[in-house]
C-alpha cells in the first residue's frame, strides 16, 4: 500500500471524474462533440486505469469478464433491435423518425439509443481486449 501512494490517491480522485466525463460524452453527444465511440473508450479507460493501479483481480471482481462479454453483445443487439423496431413501426431499417409521433422526437430517441448501443459495445470490447492481454501476462510473471 505504501509505495505508489500518490498514484493510488490520484487515481481515486481521477477515476470518478473520468467515468462521469464518459457518461457526459455519451449522453451529450447530440449537442457537443462526442458520442458512443468516444464515450465507450473513455469509460473503459477509467476501468483500465483502475486495473493498472489496483490490480486486475480487483477490477474483475467489480466488473466480471463474463458480464463484459455479455455487454459487448448486448450493445450490438440494442443497435440492431432499434433498426428492426423501426421496421416494425412501418419505416425502413434504422429509420428513426417513425419511432414516435413527432419525427424529431423519434430521431433523437433513436440516435440516443443507438449511441448507447455503440458506447456499450465499444467500452465492453476495449475492456475485453485489456482483460485478454493483461490476463495472459499474469501467469508468466507469477511463474518467475
Amino acid at each position: 500500500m505504501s509505495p505508489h501512494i500518490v498514484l493510488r490517491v490520484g487515481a481515486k480522485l481521477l477515476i470518478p471524474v473520468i467515468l462521469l466525463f464518459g457518461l457526459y460524452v455519451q449522453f451529450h453527444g447530440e449537442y457537443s462533440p462526442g458520442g458512443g465511440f468516444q464515450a465507450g473508450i473513455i469509460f473503459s479507460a477509467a476501468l483500465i486505469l483502475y486495473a493498472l493501479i489496483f490490480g486486475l483481480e480487483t477490477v474483475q471482481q467489480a466488473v466480471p469478464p463474463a458480464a463484459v462479454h455479455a455487454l459487448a453483445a448486448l450493445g450490438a443487439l440494442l443497435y440492431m433491435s432499434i433498426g428492426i423496431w423501426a421496421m416494425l413501426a412501418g419505416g425502413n431499417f434504422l429509420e428513426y423518425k417513425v419511432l414516435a409521433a413527432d419525427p424529431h422526437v423519434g430521431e433523437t430517441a433513436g440516435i440516443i439509443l443507438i449511441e448507447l448501443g455503440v458506447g456499450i459495445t465499444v467500452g465492453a470490447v476495449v475492456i475485453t481486449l485489456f482483460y485478454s492481454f493483461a490476463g495472459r501476462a499474469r501467469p508468466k510473471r507469477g511463474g518467475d
Partner: protein
Amino acid sequence: MALATVWIRNLFAATMLMGIFSLLAASLYVLLDAVDVALTEAAVGAGISIILMLGALVLTTSKEKVHDARHNLLALVVVLITGAALIYGTMDMPNFADPKAPAHQHVSPRYTQESVDEIGIPNMVTSVLASYRGLDTLGEVLVIFVAGVGVLLVLGAGGFQRRRRESGEEEE
C-alpha cells in the same frame, strides 16, 4: 516524430513516441475544427492503443530484432514508386477550404443546411453518423464486436481461464 518512431529500436520508446504523435495529431484536428475526430484520436490513438501495445510488449519483448544490414533494393524501388504515385495523386486534390471541392458539392449542403430541421439535433456530426449513415455505423460496431470476439478466441478470456484452472486445482 513519425520518423523517430520508425528509426528507434527500443519498442517501448517507439510506443511512447507513437502516443505523443497521436496527441499531436489530435491537437492538429482541433486546429482544423474537427473536434469529434480529435476526441476520438486522443482517446483511441493516444490512450487505448498505447495501453494495448504495452500489453503486447509485456507478452513478447521490448527489443526489436535487428536484421542483417543487407538492404532490399527492390523494396526501396517499390516504396519510392508508390510514394511518388501518391504524391502525384494529391496534386489533383482541391485546395484546402475550397468551397467548390467535390466533397462540398454532393450531400454536404443538405447535411449542413437541413439536418438541424430534419433531425432536430444541433451536432451535425452526430446526426450524419447516427442517422443518415446509421447502417455504416452499425457496420463499424459489428466490426469492433467481431474484433473483440477474435481476440478472445486467440488470446483466451484472460482471468476467466485462470480462475477456472485454480478452481480445478482446488477440486483435485
